[in-house]
């Protein structure tokens, strides 16, 4: 299992860098990981809003919500979402939120 070192801690990730132990997630993880997803500088309040939304949804439903739902529930459009997470909602945002990679025919 590949590992990644972020802010002095070792995390188990899959081959695409998605965190494998969801309970090991913390804010330092998200912040330290942000630059690999093309996000410059510290995460903003807008980033955290999306990250926390994704984590709450995942805890309740076991999946990441559909992208349009992310936009609608957070009052932003797709363009804004890609501005915040340039590598995309499924790859960038879910990765920083510590969610596992989407599975099934999606």
């Amino acid at each position, binding site marked *: 299992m590949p590992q990644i070192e972020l802010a002095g801690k070792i995390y188990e990730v899959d081959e695409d860098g998605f965190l494998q132990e969801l309970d090991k997630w913390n804010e330092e993880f998200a912040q330290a990981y942000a630059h690999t997803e093309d996000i410059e500088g510290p995460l903003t309040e807008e980033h955290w809003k999306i990250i926390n939304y994704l984590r709450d949804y995942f805890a309740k439903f076991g999946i990441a919500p559909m992208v349009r739902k992310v936009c*609608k529930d957070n009052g932003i459009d797709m363009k804004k979402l890609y501005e915040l997470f340039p590598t995309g909602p499924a790859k960038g945002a879910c990765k920083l939120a510590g969610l596992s990679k989407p*599975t099934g025919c999606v």
Partner: protein
Amino acid sequence: MKDRITPADISRGSAGLCRIEPGDLAPLPPPYEDFNEAVLKPLAAEKIKGLETSPDDTLAIGIAEPANKQEEEELVRRFLAGLKKLFEKENNWTFLQPLLLSMEHCARCQTCSEACPVFEMSGRQEIYRPIFRSEVLRRIYKKYLKPGGRITAKWTGDIDLNWKAIARLAELSYRCSLCRRCASVCPIGVDNGLIAHEIRKLFSQEMGIAPKELHEKGTVLHLRAGSSTGMNPLAAKDSVEFIQEEMEEITGCKVEIPWDVQGADILLLHNAGEMLAWPENVGAFAILFQAAGLSWTLSSEAAGYDAVNYGLWYDDVQFARVAVKHADIARRLKVKKIVLGECGHAHKALTVVADRLLTGDLNIPRESALVTLEDIVMSGKLTFNPQKNDFPVTLHDPCNVVRSMGIVAPQRRILGKIAPRFREMTPHGVNNYCCGGGSGFAIMSGYNFAEWRNLVSSRKKFLQILQAFESEPAETPKYVCAPCSNCKGAIRDMIAYYHAEERSHLYYGGLVELMVNALEGMKKPIIHFGEEPSWK
């Protein structure tokens, strides 16, 4: 010139058996020439540490190296024990007869090789030849399982059996998308696709070796959570509720999607991936069924809202578990029939292969949605205005629905009523080419497998799509109609990989979306090309 690899090489050396060099791949027309010299990006050393060497610079499974000699010997022993089971009727209730016939009768005429898109597009790499992996299995079978096989092997084709050969064979069973175009052209009916399937099955059922997207994150997750997407029943209901709101917003049409209606005529089974990735498909089905006044329902029971059955691709036991679950849910809901949504492998799984499994009150009538939809169109209950679909359309034939099941005409009769600028691909119908995402390839993306798919296995389909639209100007939006979730995933990925939305204005979607887009009385279109509505 490269040395020609032969089946006996499978157990020799420890390096890869093939490398795609610049210029090997079949050329693409303008404006895609920049992909003609493309090759796979090498796998990063840290990603493949401790794994068996890839036969061809990509990995579908990623098999761990055995820790020591004993472990290696044990794996070889288990492979042979599993191989024996493949040829016993108690242990292979599904495909023993076609497997035996395919093992005994290949004349090596190579008709299959010419029909295989992976072999052709890869620049004719020997290891992708449909008979290559079949011949490896055939030689092992004859040498180790047939009486006197060790002696006759000297002149019927010898092969040494070691762990290296076995690990390579496992990977090679995932370089065939089980599209069975080869089987359809074989003059004596040998099914090399089936052989690839049986190899996968041996590895999964006997050795616990399978791509994690199919097993751990596929059937296991499906049976545990209720869907291979990980969606639990609550999540399915939440997603569908959202789809209802979205449909009203997008099309102006209010739909009520029914759940768990006892005694409904139809239980509609969607691939749950549709709910997350292509919500319009789920919404469009609801609009049409509602408008046609059908009595129908979805099921919110675990596994009842996800039609997929990945077991079809690699494991009969997992297959049977999921298929029985689907049928049992329909039985308890007391529906008259199950209708399968736009998901190709679910069609083949539940209507064809499960036919040997579902007996008694589990043997509930099962029907393709393409047939149900044709009935709706031909009944005259709904009025369509084809002029709303005033853009070029082509149709992709999902292998499992079309070649495997022979459902060729209903979707075309529907298109005849709703798509005035429809044109066929060449070839099409039962002679179609796979999208490149068949047998689970569309959802396998570990290591660099998605890149291999886009470059090699999806290449033929990409060429066919470009060819279907070659008379249209680049700036005209074009619609590839693909009534299958897996195919849509593969087509979405190829469009992104080759920048085909930017360069050729290629878009894709299902059949029901095209129908709703032409439905009289809709206030707004359901199909958009980027931000642009398809009609105003």
